[in-house]
């Protein structure tokens, strides 16, 4: 910031004291005061200038979202990745337990996610209005429809899984299971990282300047979380999972580094203050 933009708080000194006396004399005798006054010490006055903007008031409005949304980013990303991992595991003949656990993570995530999102709405009772339009140019609209498909698919797959575990194999249940699994894979792929698109395509420079990296970052982070959850559920001998976890961590770091090392004034919040320390 240039000197004119940064107002340094001053301590009282002789020249400012003299100027104040001058001002008082002049005002008393002529009824008005010519030229500049004194800038007192203490709180710096905000100014309207090209460098500081309008009196230090931010130009953009800050997001109205609260903790539900970042938590949803985590839960949704993990659920999407788990659905993909589960489906691929099933198609390649991996352990049953791994497939089952992945399906449950995906299904649980697909139930928790809308709960989080709906509770963050300003008018939660109107959540169905999200289904009024299908709007490709709105990442949130695409996300809503992806979530609907993902929820239906993972619920079907998990329900079929439950029925199979309880009552054994049967053809209609297998149909539901396979259809649900295929759809979980299809919807899970975008669901795992579209939230990066959601925040990348906004007016906030800290986000839109990183729009090319956020989806990959979010997706790899989701994969990392899904693998972690699966391993915690007892699937800790799977070399496939370990490899995936390692790969996810590496790529998440790589995308994260790209974001952190990008330099521009809009990216200051990533480097300073509360958001910077996070």
């Amino acid at each position, binding site marked *: 910031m240039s000197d*004119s933009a940064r107002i340094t708080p001053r301590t009282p000194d002789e020249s400012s004291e003299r100027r104040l006396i001058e001002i008082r004399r002049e005002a008393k005798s002529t009824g008005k005061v010519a*030229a500049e006054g004194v800038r007192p010490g203490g709180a710096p*006055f905000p100014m*309207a*200038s*090209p*460098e500081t*903007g*309008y009196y230090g*008031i931010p130009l*953009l*409005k800050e997001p*109205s*979202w609260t903790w539900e949304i970042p938590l949803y980013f985590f839960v949704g990303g993990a659920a999407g*990745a788990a659905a993909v*991992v589960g489906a*691929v595991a099933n198609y*390649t003949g*991996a*352990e*049953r337990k791994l497939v089952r656990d992945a399906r449950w993570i995906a299904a649980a995530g697909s139930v928790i996610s809308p709960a989080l999102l709906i509770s*963050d*709405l*300003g008018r*939660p009772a*109107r959540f169905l*209005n*999200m289904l*009024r*339009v299908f*709007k490709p*140019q*709105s*990442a*949130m*609209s695409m996300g*809503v429809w992806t979530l609907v498909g993902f929820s239906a698919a993972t619920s079907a797959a998990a329900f079929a899984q439950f029925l199979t575990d309880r009552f054994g194999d049967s053809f209609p249940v297998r149909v539901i299971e396979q259809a649900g699994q295929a759809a979980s894979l299809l919807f899970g*792929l975008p669901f795992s*990282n579209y939230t990066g*698109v*959601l*925040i*990348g*395509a*906004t*007016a*906030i420079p800290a*986000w*839109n300047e990183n*729009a*090319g990296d956020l*989806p*990959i970052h979010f*997706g790899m982070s989701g994969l990392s979380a899904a693998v972690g959850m699966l391993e915690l559920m007892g699937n800790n001998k*799977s*070399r*496939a999972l370990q*490899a*995936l976890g390692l790969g996810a961590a590496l*790529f998440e770091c790589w995308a994260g580094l790209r974001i952190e090392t990008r330099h521009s004034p809009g990216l200051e919040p990533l480097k300073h203050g509360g958001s910077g320390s996070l």
Partner: protein
Amino acid sequence: MHRLQGLRGRISYDNTGAVGAQTWRHVKFVEQTPEPGFGGNAPEMNSWSFSSDVCKHCENAGCLEACPTGAIVRTEFGGVFVQPDICNGCGYCVVACPFGVVERHESDGRAFKCTFCYDRQKVGLKPACAKACPTESIKFGEIGELRQDAEKRIAQLKDRGMQDIQFYDASDTSVGGTHAMFIVRGDPRQYNLPPNPEVPTVYLQKAWRSSAIGALMLLGGAIAAFMMDGNGRRG
């Protein structure tokens, strides 16, 4: 000799707080230090520039493109309007506005902004701000005519010696022009008018491409990992 350089060195302060749905104040003011004797002022007097902080009613409106409920629409009068009976307060419009206009009201929950006085225009009245303005600084009319008026006015002001006058309507950006246009004295940034506003849909291609790559990485990685793990196979 006291050289007056633009707007530096003078103090003024807006104590009305941020302009938005919570405060409903929508006039910004910036102090100008004019040239001595300029515009009939005494040489040492400051003057004020006022700016109505309306919604810019963009041709390519970020809020409209972002709204996932279809609540935000274009009206027959060219304005951008949030339908209050549909808005569910998702807040995506708030982060999509490059001018920082629309805001979600804390207790109501819905998003609000200048309506272009849609209710008044529907019955043939002009917007309240234009109606109320005693100096007709805020003018309302057919957009082509207003642009012509603006050109004339700017030429007039430049003749008077104001060289730092410009027409601000974002027509040379992806926003594609705004229905609320401004004649600005000095740098638009001091009024919190962004110098290069973009409708955030311009970032979509880059972002979705990254999403596709991420999806391929996820799918490809999973296939590779599970195919090479022979020991994990059952039966």
